[in-house]
């Protein structure tokens, strides 16, 4: 029995004991979204950064399609959809970082498949994401590399989608796997996949379809392939006005990257190539190796061409 089915049985039993709420289908993933489109100025006690009003709608297109495919969005009246509000580090960090962190329930590590959306940056050897308000003095969440804030998979996360700039930069790939396990709490449970972007990504309601199709296609083909092919924008961003088709080489790309861990290169490759939202292996036995899917020479704004 795969991990997901086992945990769904556990949750179903817990739900049955706690309430009369209908438990989700045993093959359904718990799907969650945490998105910021309305950032709070520092003068108002927030962490700053510009609004991107379309952003929550983009990731909601993924979340809604997952729901339409039969995955579990949460109980009525308390769905796993968190937009703006009190979005702080507390929702993303692991109790191993701070005992008051809430990733395990009901936030970042509660969903089997989770998508987060916020401004991001390259924090040296890992990704950082902007929060709405500070928590314990922290205005960002940092994951991977030398950061000890985020540890996914020791609770529930299988697929983590990060709609955020610099979330899978070519120079930070080695560190992403450190955010996908927590040896302090479990030696057997791990996240499977982290999907993000090299360089900046672009926000537009016109791109909602990319997120919807990621969810849809990820049931027919691998999640990795679905993420990368649906979010790749080939030489079409930020072109000079006279060069809309990049005939004169003035355009940039949007560069998605899909990343899986495994006990070996072959294991990581097999997971990357095969895992779908409706076909999930048991957890990797280690994060010793990783494999990633990308477009050669992908050249975004904010970074040089992808070249790990």
């Amino acid at each position: 029995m795969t991990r997901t089915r086992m945990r769904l049985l556990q949750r179903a039993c817990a739900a049955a004991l706690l309430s009369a709420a209908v438990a989700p289908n045993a093959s359904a993933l718990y799907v969650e979204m945490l998105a910021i489109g309305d950032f709070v100025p520092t003068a108002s006690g927030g962490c700053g950064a510009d609004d991107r009003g379309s952003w929550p709608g983009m990731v909601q297109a993924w979340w809604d399609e997952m729901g339409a495919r039969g995955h579990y969005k949460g109980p009525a009246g308390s769905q796993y959809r968190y937009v703006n509000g009190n979005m702080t580090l507390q929702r993303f960090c692991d109790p191993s970082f701070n005992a008051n962190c809430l990733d395990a329930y009901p936030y970042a590590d509660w969903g089997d498949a989770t998508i987060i959306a916020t401004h991001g940056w390259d924090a040296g050897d890992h990704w950082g994401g902007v929060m709405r308000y500070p928590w314990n003095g922290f205005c960002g969440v940092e994951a991977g590399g030398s950061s000890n804030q985020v540890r996914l998979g020791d609770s529930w996360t299988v697929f983590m989608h990060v709609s955020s700039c610099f979330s899978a930069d070519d120079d930070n790939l080695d560190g992403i796997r450190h955010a996908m396990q927590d040896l302090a709490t479990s030696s057997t449970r791990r996240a499977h996949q982290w999907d993000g972007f090299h360089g900046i990504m672009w926000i537009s309601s016109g791109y909602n379809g990319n997120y919807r199709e990621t969810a849809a296609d990820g049931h027919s083909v691998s999640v990795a392939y679905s993420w990368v092919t649906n979010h790749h924008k080939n030489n079409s961003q930020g072109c000079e006005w006279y060069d809309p088709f990049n005939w004169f080489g003035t355009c940039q790309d949007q560069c998605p990257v899909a990343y899986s861990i495994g006990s070996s290169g072959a294991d990581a490759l097999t997971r990357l190539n095969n895992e779908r939202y409706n076909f999930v292996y048991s957890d990797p036995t280690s994060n010793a190796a990783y494999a990633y899917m990308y477009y050669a020479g992908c050249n975004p704004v904010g970074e040089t061409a992808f070249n790990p």
Partner: protein
Amino acid sequence: MKLQQRMLWGVAAAGLALAYSYDAGAQGEPRPLSREEIAAMVRDTMPPILKSDLPGLVDNLLSVPLGKPLSETFDPSRAAGRVFGRLPRTFAADCLRKTTPVGDPDQGDCTLSNGEEGGTGAYTRLSYSKNMGSGNIKFLKRGAVQDLDPGKLASVKLGDADADKGAREFLVSFFGLPAAELPDLPAGVRPPVRSLLIGFDKKAGLAPIVIQKTVHLQRSFKLAKPIQVPGTKQMLTHVPGPGMAMVALDDTGVIGAAVQDWQDVRRDPRMSGNSAKTSADLIQEIADDIYEEGGGPIASMKFRIVLGSDWRGSHGLLLPAVQVFVAPVANDPTEDQQQQMARSTTAGMVREYALVRRLEGDIQQRDPFAAN
């Protein structure tokens, strides 16, 4: 070219002068630009034609020749024959439903498949819009689940030129895309082909593997009157239209394809250059919209003249428009500069603005790029 370069440098310098830099003392929130500063940047960086002759541009855009619509050229049997070959295919039950319960065109897809989507075996899917005015077609294929050995996988060797040729032939022959809306590349221009790879951590000592080539084709319309870049011999000869196509190939041929939003488009008889906004109004509209999102930072602002679509349920009406790409960060910052972006605005923004005035009641809900 020197005049053009001097012009571009001047624009860039004006842009940099207006964009604010990161203040280490106020990390995460530099001084936002004022509405007037943003308007000045829009005015300085927008294509000259948008300032000099909007009505003429609108007429030019509305005069593009249109190819035959997919609703006339897409043949499901032909597409399915190519996708499935001799494999049996199963139609989804709702393929027969063409309208909603209230009689509107059904905007969903008809799906044909071979294999079990949720299983471990091979699976092939062809989906297409039941109302092909929407212009969506998708062909996906996967092999059976199996353990993979990176040492035993061979990279695809297909060349870019062959991939481009194969993709175009597939789209025209089997999906019915009009060849006239896939422009021929000018001489010396590389085809829009990328290699999709799987890479491994360096410690593994494994070389990356090319798993496929993908060809990306933007729908385009040829302008009746090309637009010259001032001071140069360069001409804008085509503009993007609503629709994108992507074709995946390996050494066996086409293994996947997606056509998105290749809508049936028609001209709105009520629309002409007389409907054009004034340049001043357009500049203010763009500036106001960017200002409302927070006012910056803005490292670059780029424009793309397009033909959008005003969706009407079964087809779209051509809508002359401009897309604006606002990037908050520089093109190739150093690693140190990247770290200075901590807790700052980094995501780019893309918005589309109609070049014509429209009555509020004419604006339909399916205007994907409309400012929120």
